């Protein structure tokens, strides 16, 4: 059953001193992805930018670049989208190719899809592989299917890493997360990606939103929706399959994909460069609202 959603992502910057010039790069427009249809998107900026342009980045994500030359003390970015989530067929994870076969294919890609996947096989600026081999050595038993490993990894991370805000930052290396076993969704995703890449597999970082939060004990309605992140693993025939280690689930009609890349650095929703401003405060409000009634809850 198709689910229609209205997405709103509001960002508010308040500056202590006037900002004379501001350049922002936004990744706030949901990209085309399997399982979702983008009906419409809109981005509103205040104050009115002198320049605003959209383009796609190296991974096919939608970028909005803007330049504000008017003096301001606050910046508001409102991104909205109308999206339909379509149900996907159940897949038999165990039917996927073995991880050894997949890794070998990625070493010498022979077709378009495996070719596109090879760029997600290696360490990237925010995903070093140190410590990853040992963390999941027992999962990589010979001839085990890739997606089964993906699932196992999802479970392993969910069970062994504590969800804990304020302990890590966007710059915390994976090795440290694996050592301290604490972090947020971003660290969960980075850890899984490091493990898969350490064994020569292709894994990418996906940023987006949860329709409702399924984190144990915090389940609530759409009012407190937040930005989220998970990972995706590739294998021949099956292509990319998403796993959400923060919630120990396979996303299905519950996750809205915004962008993907090698790691958080490739998909950060706002990057800015301002002149002046002094200290700044940032408020983000995300809301996902269901548009039409659906007869069954997701999953």
């Amino acid at each position, binding site marked *: 059953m198709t689910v229609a959603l209205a997405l709103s992502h509001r960002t508010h910057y308040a500056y202590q001193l006037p900002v004379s010039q501001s350049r922002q790069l936004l990744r706030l427009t949901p990209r085309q992805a399997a399982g979702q249809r983008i009906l419409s998107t809109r981005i509103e900026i205040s104050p009115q930018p002198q*320049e605003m342009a959209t383009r796609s980045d190296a991974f096919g994500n939608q970028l909005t670049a803007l330049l504000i030359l008017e003096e301001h003390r606050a910046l508001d970015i409102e991104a909205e989208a109308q999206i339909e989530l379509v149900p996907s067929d159940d897949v038999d994870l165990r039917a996927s190719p073995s991880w050894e076969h997949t890794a070998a294919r990625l070493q010498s890609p022979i077709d378009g899809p495996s070719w596109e996947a090879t760029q997600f096989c290696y360490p990237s600026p925010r995903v070093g592989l140190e410590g990853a081999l040992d963390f999941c050595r027992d999962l990589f038993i010979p001839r085990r299917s890739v997606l089964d490993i993906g699932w196992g990894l999802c479970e392993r991370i969910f069970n062994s890493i504590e969800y804990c805000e304020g302990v890590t930052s966007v710059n915390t290396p994976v090795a440290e997360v694996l050592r301290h076993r604490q972090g947020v969704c971003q660290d969960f995703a980075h850890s899984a990606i490091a493990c898969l890449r350490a064994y020569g597999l292709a894994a990418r970082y996906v940023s987006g939103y949860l329709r409702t939060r399924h984190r144990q004990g915090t389940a609530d309605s759409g009012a407190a929706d937040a930005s989220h992140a998970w990972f995706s693993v590739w294998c021949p025939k099956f292509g990319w399959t998403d796993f959400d280690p923060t919630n120990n689930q396979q996303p299905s009609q519950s996750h809205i994909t915004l962008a993907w890349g090698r790691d958080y650095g490739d998909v950060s929703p706002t990057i800015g460069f301002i*002149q002046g401003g002094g200290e700044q405060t940032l408020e983000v409000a995300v809301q996902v609202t269901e548009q039409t009634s659906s007869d069954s809850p997701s999953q």
Partner: protein
Amino acid sequence: MTLHSSQSSQPGLAGIHPQWVEALAHYDASPSAYDELLREGGVREHWLPLLRQPLEGARGAPSARGGSPERRRDALPFIIAAEEWRSIEVGLEQRARLLNAINTDFYGAQRLLREQGFPPALVFANRRYLPACRPGFSTSGASLGLLAFDLGRAPDGGWRVLANRTETPTGLGLALQNRFQTASLLNVAAQEAAIPSLDDVLNGFSAEVRQRGQATGAPRESLCVVLAGDATQPDYADWRPLSERLGFPLLEGNDLAVRGGSVFAKTLKGLKSVAAILRLVESDRCDPLTLSPTSLAGAPGLLNAATQRGVAVINPIGCGAVESDALNPFLPALCEHLLDEALLLPSLATWWCGQRQEAAQVLEQLDQLAVGEAFCAPCGLDADPTPTKPDAAPDEVLREAIQAQPYRFAGREPISLSCAPCLMPDGQLMPAPLTLRLFAAATPSGYRVLPGGLARMAGGLSALVKDVWIAETSRAPIHRATSDLRASPELAPLPTRQPEASQDAAALAAVADAAAVGSAIITRRLGDDLFWFGRYLERAQTAIRIFTALARLIAEGRPSNAAAGQELLQLLASLGFTVAADGRSAEAFNEAGFCRLLFDAASDDALINLLERLQLTGRRRRGTLPAAAWQVLESTHQAQQSRWRVHTLASALRLLDGLALRLAAVTGLMDETQPRDQGFWLQRLGKHIERLRLLAAINVEFGVAQAPMDPNRLHLLLQLHSLSETQAAWTADAGAALHRLVCDADNPKSMRHQAERIGRCLERLFPQGLSKGLTEVRNCASALGNELADVCRRAGVGADEETRQLLRSANARTGELSALVSAMWFEPQAVPDDGGSLG
């Protein structure tokens, strides 16, 4: 190099200057290494012309410094035979084409990986490959413009390429300087050796950069610029001469603004369109928005402008991907495939662990090979490219790291380099191992290799650099294929420089032209520097005057001086020259206390801090400072160094007098020689604002408006204004003093004079423009003028509290004025309607 004496097939030491014979007796060539100078039974032929010259020319050379203080220049060049050079030249030209083709593919269709079976890890595991430079899988199609190569000669006599440098091909500026200085040291030898000039290739390169800039569709009068780091970076000494030679202004990321996909330079006359950028900032530091967000060395939005071809960036951002050692084993195959040619000049043997067999081999020979990062970080000129045998037992940590992520590592064959003679400080000749850094540049007629370069000593002597000369030893036509500089192909017995004269003149004219264009560009940052240079200079001079007055008071030793001394100490503290500390000032009023105070760096504006800042600002804007003024300024270094030697008032006074004289000389030299351009007026503006601030403070502190004025204090006050006794004759009473020091517009040390000059500087600086910031500056300056006029109206009345109040408010106003001028640099600039032709 031509041999005009009879050609001997076995040149022993015949014909060699006795000084060389003597020096060579102690020259201890290593039997195992290839020696560049000596061979079995004698001297290599192509060194002979140099060896016929007396050695003392080189010996007498001052220990020249190759740009940075850490780098020493050897007076002796490295000489390479022309036939051998030609093979290197052809090989490097091919390598330039090859690397360019690889870079184009990596950031374009990626066919090499997709269809030709080259391992994808070469690109995707390569941390120097930046996906952001290939947005939307489109390519900018930009090609490499300048490449550097490090070469070394193996014991078998063959040359190996040790490193390809595309990211920041540094060293060219240093090579230019070297050529100039080595050639003038060994003038005679140089003429006889007829070393080919670098101008031809450089002019071609500059033309190519302009052409690529024009191809972006930028307006005709757009600039070509060099984008580099600031003066504190170690390679600055290399960038500056290169920028000067090419005639492209040397800018920092801060000087650039990106608007609507085009790049502009923020000049004092508004935004000026930039068509081409010679990039000497590492790729990932070029754009904080899309690349490394922590770097301020680039300009936000630059990458997008470059990929959309709004500006030509040379070399293209991201091209560091092709300088990796991991590529070495693939170059022969890539060359066959991309150019349909055999690779001419081999790389040093390299095993990349991204391949299973090679990885096994490296692991087996960990104790034999130089193992390191396959995708090395960008490195500056100070990095030694020579792989050496590991001196410790193989490390288990390294072994494990290779096994975990093999593609990150490569093993390289250690090389024992050839040795060439170096002149040691004691005048002895010593053989030292060396590598060559050579350059290829794109010109309208394809890649050309610079006939010369930089020889760098390896190992412990890596700070020593030499010029590279190419010498003819046979009667073959000189450089027909590679250099059209020489008009006459046949060999004269003694080649003269005559045929080149007209070419040289043309080249000189081109340089002068380019320099004129360069000097017309005053960026906001440079403007800010000039403004502060004016201020620091004035501030340092005033500090010196106050310290001098204080030292004299102490030296006189009269008990009555103590009160005045305290006032001077207070003045020093209130102007920020010393840290205001209660109770400490009493201690300072004696010889030892004074010497301590003079060198106390605790305050931001302490004299030695001021001198240092003056030097730093001067160094940054060295190009606009008269050479003599720069030298004088540098000589004030001694102040910092003399702090351990100055223990008496007499020596302190000598130091202060010396400094005062030097800074006066700097001021005078600048007034005499600087063109009255915007830079000049900015510096003047700084000087007058600063002087006004200091005078207002001094006058308030010393109660210029108090009556009656104690003659001793009056004397002191005049001294602080640097007015002489005879000039002081007319300031017998306080009313007259007030008039002279505050209101007399004809007295260059009066406050009124400063206010008038500030107005004039602003008029000269901004004859037409009236930005928001400038309007505020003007209003503030005129308010100040009015206030001073009020003070002057009161002069007849005499000094009273109201006058003092006015002086204080004038003092505050100067602070405001200074803040407004600084704020002007941060105003956003709009793109001129006519596409950047303003000014």
